[in-house]
């Protein structure tokens, strides 16, 4: 549905995005993840036909965003960053304007506007001036205008920014419900949002794509081993030596020893569970086992590793140390 090839954008001497390529299948929700200034908004502005790329191509539903811009625009709903709206207009009047400019037939207009207001929970606010609304409501009006005209593709730049936790949950549920009929590309820097809402992730940093795939794929790519945390009340050096000897253990990372507890993270090949062997070892030595659990790698850790790894422009090991303490129970 969305096909982007070698997209590049320069603002004068500044390169906003460089050689970005990805594809999104119909009905999927893809999260664009990246630190501030990574080029997320630039990519979305190009996809929404607001500005052209300096190089490369982008196609939506088979139409080129530059040469067939009108065809593309008929098929997209766009929510720019910070939902820019006309503060002097009442909500319903504004949405009526959007419906008309998007070519919703006159007879259906009222019903369509009512429908999107319902979906975005703004029906109660329809007579209010947009300028009088809180940030959260404005954001939802922005989302409502994107949904008008029932576009095949939705491009949402930070759709949940400025909302309170309850509203965030509602909007996420709304976006989730769009999957299937609509193809959605949304940007965010809230990591759990991607896990909750998106089918796929594209991590972008300094204008380049540094990782893409489903969350599980990314975790596997970035952390090829599975990890088990173990805490034993014993002398740390002895325990570490013994742990290394367990079959299947690839590495042992020492963590802080506190109150006589030696804590480690044991790495093993993915799919090989070493927990049974570890318990047998510990009990045979008579060490009191205080803690044993699998360390699940979340997108957050993937993101930190990938982005920080980029920043250090070196191998991933360089960020091992700061990443580990964050997992302390």
């Amino acid at each position, binding site marked *: 549905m969305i096909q982007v090839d070698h997209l590049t954008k320069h603002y004068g001497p500044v390169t906003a995005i460089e050689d970005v390529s990805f594809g999104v299948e119909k009905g999927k929700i893809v999260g664009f993840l990246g630190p501030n200034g990574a080029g997320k908004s630039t990519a979305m502005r190009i996809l929404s036909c607001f500005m052209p790329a300096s190089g490369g191509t982008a196609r939506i539903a088979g139409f080129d965003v530059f040469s067939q811009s*009108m065809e593309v625009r008929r098929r997209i709903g766009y929510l*720019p960053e910070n939902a820019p709206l006309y503060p002097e207009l009442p909500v319903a009047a504004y949405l009526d304007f*959007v419906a008309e400019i998007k070519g919703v037939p006159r007879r259906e207009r009222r019903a369509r506007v009512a429908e999107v207001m319902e979906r975005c929970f703004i029906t109660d606010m329809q007579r209010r001036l947009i300028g009088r609304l809180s940030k959260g409501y404005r954001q939802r009006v922005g989302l409502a205008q994107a949904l008008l005209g029932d576009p095949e593709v939705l491009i949402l730049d930070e759709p949940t920014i400025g909302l309170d936790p309850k509203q965030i949950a509602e909007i996420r549920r709304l976006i989730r419900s769009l999957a299937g009929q609509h193809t959605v590309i949304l940007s965010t820097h809230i990591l759990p949002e991607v896990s909750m809402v998106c089918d796929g992730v594209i991590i972008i940093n300094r204008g380049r794509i540094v990782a893409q795939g489903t969350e599980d794929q990314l975790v596997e790519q970035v952390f090829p081993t599975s990890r088990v945390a173990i805490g034993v009340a014993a002398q740390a050096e002895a325990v570490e030596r013994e742990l290394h000897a367990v079959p299947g253990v690839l590495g042992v990372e020492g963590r802080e020893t506190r109150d006589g507890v030696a804590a480690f993270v044991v790495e093993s090949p993915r799919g090989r569970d070493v927990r049974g062997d570890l318990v047998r070892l510990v009990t045979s030595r008579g060490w009191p086992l205080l803690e044993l659990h699998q360390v699940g790698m979340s997108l957050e850790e993937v993101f930190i590793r990938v982005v920080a790894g980029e920043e250090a422009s070196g191998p991933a090991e360089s960020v091992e140390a700061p990443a580990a303490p964050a997992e302390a129970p």
Partner: protein
Amino acid sequence: MRWWPVFKKEMRLYFGSPVAYVVGTFFLVISGWFFSQILFFYNMSSMQAAMQPQMGQSLNPTEAILRPLFSNMSVVLLFFMPMVTMRLFAEEKRSGTIELLLTYPVRDGEVLLGKFLAAGALYVLLLALTLLYPGMVGYFARVEWGAVLTGYLGLLLLGGTFLSVGLLLSSMTENQIVAGFATFGILLALWVVGWGADFAGGTLRTVLQYVAITDHMDSFSKGVLDTKDVVYYLTAMAFALFLALRSLEAKRWKG
């Protein structure tokens, strides 16, 4: 054509905010003041003419009331029109709404047309209200309605030119004040440049006379429909709108 929703939106913004009312009020107050002053002067002249009959020749109401009124109104417009147009693109750019507007399935030209026609409609409304003045003169004296018609046609063309220059400058900046002031500056320069014609000679004189924006209004207020003047306003309008369109498109290239 998708200019209609843009037109409607701009009208809502004009009348939903104080812009239309403030501009309308002051335009009517000031042009009304000019009208009354001209009328008082005419009144005085006619009393003098009653004592000195040879002065009566200059007492043609069309010539002595409406012609100076039109010329005064064109100067008042020069001050007011920049305030009607300065918001149109600059505000959309500042607030970012242009990003949405230009990604809807509507051509840049249609957006421009919608905005131009909205500003034009507001202007036509203001002009319609001033029809009261020739109406009053017509009630008490014999007026050449043909000259009134050409006078208003001239004002329409003049105002349309002011509006298109304003739209052009509004499309070039995201600061309303800059847009308004630059429009005003350009229009003022185009007005006063005509004064230089008096001291210039040869080709320069002809050029200055031709460029001067309000001078072309004079033949209309005399009741003369001169193609030279019609062409002047229409080309100026088309040229400014064309540049405005280019400036909108340039935004797409530069980002």
